[in-house]
């Protein structure tokens, strides 16, 4: 297979673009897609300071890498979830990356913040591990951004992640979730950082290839709790659709963003308040994170 740009030997075939690329031309293609995402959704100001949420996986480290090269001033945030070897290894990948690229990395620990690591939270709450884990991540990402005076958090969500989330929301007709699904979420309160997903135009195949070709040492293993997650089942369905008809995932997601999303937007008059305990934004009196931490402390 030949590179569409230069005719050299291709390293990657991208069927949905009906193209193949050599390594340098693929990296160019990748960076252009990120630039296009940032431009189109006005995600970041030039040279803006960004908190990049990193997990040690291919997506978030690829994101961090490309944002550094695009000239943004980045700080990484790694959340130590306390999930056995997976957390130990993924943390090491982030630290190695930060040292290699000479960029700052903040590490926050769920065990310290909540009072117990994710596997213990799971037992205490008797809820799926992803429930307490996801809540803690959302909360800590925003709080760390505020504590460090950073107005925007970037996450490594890719096209497949977004398409799978959309698929899940549609199968349950979660209209609130559909209204919120966007590559860029604005700040709606002085204490809420903006959230952006500069990789939303790139597939998992593309983010993996980028990480590999850039020689980024990322964690290939999965979180042990990810097994059997419904979003993985959704991804498998979408992969079959994509195989039968290249571009299906792209059309599914982009069609929604361009043509359908607006129909789900409502003037949401949910009053936002500040948690009486921690001061973070909530719709109640005490936020769900503080309630979780209380429950953990009471039980242990």
């Amino acid at each position, binding site marked *: 297979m030949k590179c569409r740009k230069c005719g050299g030997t291709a*390293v990657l075939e991208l069927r949905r673009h009906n193209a193949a690329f050599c390594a340098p031309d693929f990296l160019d293609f990748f960076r252009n897609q990120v630039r296009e995402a940032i431009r189109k959704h006005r995600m970041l100001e030039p040279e803006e300071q960004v908190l990049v949420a990193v997990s040690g996986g291919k997506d978030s480290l690829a994101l961090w890498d490309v944002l550094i090269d695009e000239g943004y001033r980045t700080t990484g945030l790694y959340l130590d979830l306390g999930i056995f070897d997976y957390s130990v290894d993924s943390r090491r990948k982030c630290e190695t990356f930060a040292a290699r690229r000479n960029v700052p990395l903040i590490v926050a620990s769920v065990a310290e913040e909540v009072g117990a690591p994710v596997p213990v939270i799971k037992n205490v709450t008797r809820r799926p591990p992803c429930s307490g884990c996801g809540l803690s991540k959302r909360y800590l990402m925003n709080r760390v951004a505020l504590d460090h005076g950073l107005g925007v958090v970037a996450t490594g969500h890719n096209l497949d992640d977004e398409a799978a989330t959309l698929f899940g929301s549609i199968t349950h007709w979660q209209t609130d979730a559909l209204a919120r699904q966007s590559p860029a979420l604005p700040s709606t309160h002085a204490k809420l950082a903006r959230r952006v997903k500069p990789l939303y135009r790139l597939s998992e195949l593309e983010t993996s290839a980028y990480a590999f070709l850039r020689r980024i040492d990322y964690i290939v293993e999965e979180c042990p709790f990810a097994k059997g997650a419904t979003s993985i089942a959704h991804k498998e369905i979408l992969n079959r659709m994509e195989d039968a008809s290249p571009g299906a995932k792209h059309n599914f997601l982009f069609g929604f963003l361009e043509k359908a999303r607006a129909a789900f937007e409502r003037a949401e008059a949910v009053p936002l308040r500040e948690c009486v305990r921690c001061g973070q934004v909530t719709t109640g009196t005490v936020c769900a994170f503080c309630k979780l931490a209380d429950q953990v402390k009471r039980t242990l």
Partner: protein
Amino acid sequence: MKVILRNPRREVEMPGERRVKDVLRELDILPETVLVIRGDELITPDQVVRDADIIELRPVMSGGSQIAPGAGHPPTAPALRPSLP
């Protein structure tokens, strides 16, 4: 040839040489769900893998390795408004 699979890591021996796309078909793997790695290079589905080669088929699917709700996570959209903590 030796084929290395991941998550969990295991190895499969396949006699003779064949194209990457045939290896994938035999193992029932969709082409766009893995990186095909030989040495320190990526190779495309039309390339021929020789008997003495070792290739790694590395899954590209993430689930749970993300820091924010998304891959592998419960079906929660990134929440800023209604489902704030």
